């Protein structure tokens, strides 16, 4: 393939920890091959060459928390043929969306002596609340294999295979005994989207939901099971209000235990 024919990739950052874009650099075995298949046109974390758009594929990490960023994402969408969001911040607002349930001025005042210098919005919102998104990769952080699947699929022009089912299926596939049944450990696996490979139960702990809600998550039924295992209302509220707190099914379930 001539260099000219390579699709142009851009990687963008909003409010986030850098972990999801790091997943791209963590593809140690595939990185040099990826760089042959794609032109890395804009990826400031990895390159000081920042070439102007338009781009064939934009990978977007992070959530929108400032007016400046709300304007920036509109321009990125205009410059991008396909736009894919990476991870819990970009798809659901991330851990920083906990501000959505508090008075942001109080939070800023708790961290900064001179809050007046800090410009930030009252909410942390996902990218899809601002622009059309073509695909979403969930997770805090995203799974490297899912990222490679997505890029590979888009390169050949097919739809990426991304599961909407729960972590439970991955536990079964991995051969991990159910931690809720075998160890009475409260687990969010039954309502959480697969993709991580069911890591937490394999490490003797319940899933904490970092991939966000699966499709058609029955959170109310799971909460009843948690109560039977001794979980308090406070614990239920906390576990749903974590890395995907602003994802609708998790937000609703947390609210149900905020009394």
């Amino acid at each position: 393939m001539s260099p000219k024919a390579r699709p142009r990739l851009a990687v963008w950052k909003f409010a986030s920890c850098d972990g999801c874009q790091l997943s791209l650099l963590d593809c140690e075995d595939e990185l040099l091959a990826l760089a042959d298949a794609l032109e890395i046109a804009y990826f400031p974390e990895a390159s000081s060459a920042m070439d102007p758009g338009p781009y064939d594929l934009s990978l977007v990490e992070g959530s929108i928390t400032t007016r400046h960023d709300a304007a920036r994402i509109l321009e990125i969408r205009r410059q991008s043929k396909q736009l894919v969001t990476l991870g819990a911040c970009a798809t659901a607002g991330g851990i920083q969306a906990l501000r959505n349930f508090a008075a942001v001025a109080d939070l800023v005042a708790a961290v900064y002596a001179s809050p007046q210098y800090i410009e930030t919005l009252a909410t942390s919102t996902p990218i899809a609340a601002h622009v059309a998104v073509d695909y979403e990769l969930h997770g805090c952080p995203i799974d490297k294999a899912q990222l490679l699947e997505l890029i590979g699929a888009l390169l050949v022009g097919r739809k990426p295979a991304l599961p909407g089912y729960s972590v439970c299926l991955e536990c079964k596939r991995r051969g991990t005994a159910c931690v809720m049944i075998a160890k009475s450990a409260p687990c969010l696996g039954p309502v959480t989207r697969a993709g991580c490979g069911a890591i937490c139960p394999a490490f003797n702990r319940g899933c904490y939901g970092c991939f966000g809600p699966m499709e058609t998550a029955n959170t109310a039924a799971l909460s009843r099971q948690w109560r039977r295992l001794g979980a308090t209302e406070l614990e239920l509220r906390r576990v749903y209000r974590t890395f995907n707190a602003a994802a609708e099914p998790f937000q609703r379930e947390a609210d149900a235990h905020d009394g």
Partner: protein
Amino acid sequence: MTVKRLRVDLIARVEGEGALDLDIEDGRVRAARLNIFEPPRLFEALLRGRGYTEAPDITARICGICPIAYQMSSVHAIENAIGVRVEGPLRALRRLIYCGEWIESHALHVVMLHAPDFLGYPNVIEMARDHRSAVEAGLLLKKAGNEILRALGGREIHPVNVRVGGFYRAPTRSELMSLTGCIERARDSALQILRWASGFSFPDYERDYELVALRHPHEYPLNEGRICSSRGLDIDAASFDSEFEERQVEHSTALHAVLKRRGSYLVGPLARYGLNFERLPPEVQSLAREVGLAAVCRNPYQSILVRMLETVYACGEALRLIDGYDPPEAACVAAPPRAAVGQACTEAPRGICHHRYEIDAGGTILGARIIPPTSQNQLCIEEDLREIASRHLSLSDDALRDRCEQAIRNYDPCISCSAHFLKLTVRRA
């Protein structure tokens, strides 16, 4: 009077987003400001009202490059509050997972972000066309660090296994033994990269930094030690506030940490190495001399060598820890809450990371404060920039901008980390 401002809007090859403003007036640098415009994520405020056991998982999300640093500082600080000590094999496992993070983070910075500066490439991909072997060695090294994180933590980014009191699951001896081949090859790769980087041309630049790092009676510091400096500071983590303070500056969403009595100080590989040279094994000390490093190095450009020397050390230390590993009876010790305040400092790849938590009798976090390494180095970075820009005012704006960006990358600044937290503008006259 003529004033000129040079601006770098987005500093590349750093983690997170920052910019630099340089004001040049009548041929002198008047101001160098590192602007961290990373949107504030307000972690310390979000931690209030959360359970003390949630701190390692939540604070990991401050930084995807060094989540273990946050997990370790948080569990040590909380254990300090509740009066729990984690010893024996669990302590060794914590040191091992931290070695994994040092290897992964140092390999990323040295080969993928910093080396291109010395060789004149915009990125590692372009550099790989001419330096394929070094880049492949770097990728292998990075992967080995990540293998340690995956084996002990479940995944490389935001590992899931660290908890207050120890781990959720302790690995079997054979699980750790399966890593040794990969770590031995990584150690060879680190040696190859160190010797390769020792041939780079380093600007003749040194500054009399106050070096601040942990010191431990026997070990090169990772999880434990007293906070010491090259000017006689020697305190425990709980006395941090008596010597250090954070100041907010208008141009940055990151707070600046300073020594109350002396101002700026340097944390990270140069500080750690300079204060702990004698804690390195003899073969690593010899290696330092072989690549031209004295027992104290004050040239920030040579931090690339010190980082790779530390990586060689971390590989050897990981092998030593695995060799001596005897699985614990339980993966964690009991860690019930009590109303208390706890503080701890550990050595993140970029330098000391200080956490302080106040928790109530039920374990709810009442207050949290996190001081990441990059916010401690900001003042030092600005002082370096002022000095380095002053020496290169005859350069074109573009060339000056490159020099300044490189000066910043010497610090491997992690801007996402500055929980509370860059753009180059040069104003010239």
